[in-house]
């Protein structure tokens, strides 16, 4: 498969995947979609994964982990962790992003994070051999700050020229009590479907016009900061391709991929 751009973007969930794995539901179509995506990326020759984890929320500035190696930890309380995913870092690329951020007056900082469950779980399916180095990034600031940092990251990654997967880890709507009471709410499902529709039409920026109360009700991961970084990297009008749009009793599994080429096996 020919992929022209040197950047590929994707947003994937993590907690539902973890639960699916815990429940030995290895046949989940979401897990299959992750595996397929990983195989496509391997075939393409991906050299690094820049992974934005919505669980790494920093107050003062954006953080970059430039470690040589990332040991996995299981930091999802309430779910027993079996997942281990140790992977190399990419200090050279991390430092390049740091310099670009300083030059753009974004002033990112270096911090140690690790491959926590948000990173480890999807990557276990995408790159089970752990052979693609990663650069973890935090989320921070406002949507505008995130979009601005995303633009800088995108420009820098393009000039770097290596093949990069820009991976954002996080679901859209979330409801922590859903596992214990009445399951997924129609409000959450409708919200997710709206986001999927907007992203697939290249209208992700219209998220800005959504009613604030509605957003507060469904509590999207890190208030879409990771998603706005992705839109900055890939271009705000880039259409997303729906790789998976699974609705299970414990949550929605949405995988949206952004690329410069039109994949043949998309769902829309």
């Amino acid at each position, binding site marked *: 498969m020919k992929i022209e751009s040197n950047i590929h973007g994707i947003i994937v969930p993590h907690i539902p995947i973890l639960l699916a794995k815990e429940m030995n539901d290895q046949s989940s179509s979401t897990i299959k979609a992750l595996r397929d995506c990983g195989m496509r990326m391997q075939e393409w020759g991906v050299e690094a994964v820049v992974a934005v984890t919505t669980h790494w929320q920093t107050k003062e500035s954006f953080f970059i982990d430039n470690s040589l190696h990332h040991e996995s930890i299981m930091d999802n309380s309430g779910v027993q962790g079996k997942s281990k995913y140790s992977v190399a870092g990419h200090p050279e690329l991390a430092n390049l992003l740091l310099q670009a951020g300083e030059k*753009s*007056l974004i*002033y990112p900082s270096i911090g140690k994070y690790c491959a926590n469950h948000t990173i480890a779980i999807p990557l276990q399916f995408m790159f089970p051999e752990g052979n693609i180095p990663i650069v973890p990034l935090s989320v921070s600031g*406002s*949507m*505008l*700050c995130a*979009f*601005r940092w995303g*633009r*800088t990251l995108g420009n820098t990654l393009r000039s770097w020229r290596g093949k990069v997967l820009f991976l954002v880890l996080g679901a859209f709507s979330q409801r922590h009590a859903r596992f214990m009471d009445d399951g997924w709410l129609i409000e959450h499902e409708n919200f997710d479907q709206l986001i999927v529709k907007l992203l697939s039409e290249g*209208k992700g*920026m*219209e998220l*800005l*016009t*959504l*009613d*604030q*109360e509605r*957003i507060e009700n469904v509590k999207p991961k890190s208030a879409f900061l990771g998603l706005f970084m992705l*839109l*900055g990297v890939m*271009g*705000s*009008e880039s259409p997303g391709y729906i790789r998976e749009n699974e609705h299970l009793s414990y949550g929605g599994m949405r995988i949206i991929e952004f690329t410069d080429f039109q994949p043949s096996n998309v769902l829309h």
Partner: protein
Amino acid sequence: MDENVNLTDEEILRFFNEGDKERALKLFINQYQARLYSLTYRMLGNHDDAMDALQEIFIQINRSLQTFKGRSSLYTWVYRLSSNICFNFRKKRSKTNRQMEWDEGLQSAMLPIERPNEDPDTMCETKYNQFLVQQAILKLPETQRVLLILHDLEGLSVPDAASILNINTNAAKSRIHRARAALRNIISKGFVVKGMEGVGVFTSEDVSKMI
């Protein structure tokens, strides 16, 4: 311009002149980012160019703040520099023959999303009307459009807008007057909105409540 802007501007300049450049620029970005993004988006009509222009503004401020002599307010000086950067972006873009249109359906990019504080139907109607006004403004000649954006949309006073564009206040008043007349003319003749061609031509009847 509110009092807080003046106080923060003083702090920005004080930190900068004391050599704490990073602190000054962080404060500047925190203070001006959302408003300047609103300006660049209104001037350029899409998010990617608006953000690239905003980034260029910050780089230029970083380079030029030491030359700021205080002959005007920092606010006016920044808006003048920002407007020039947007003009240059537009020139570059016209050379590559790209279309300059507003994204459909967006009214106040990146600004905080407000809770509905009135009847939802009324709120939708208001937003829709704002959208149509912005679409009509895009049909104006550049010199008129920038004044309407600075004065009528960004809320700058006529003297501030005039200072930004290096024209005198009377000329600015006259240009705003002509721009409003031209806008009425565009609306009365009717106009087509990009992405909404199927809806047909918008006329004064559609936007009579807008102005």
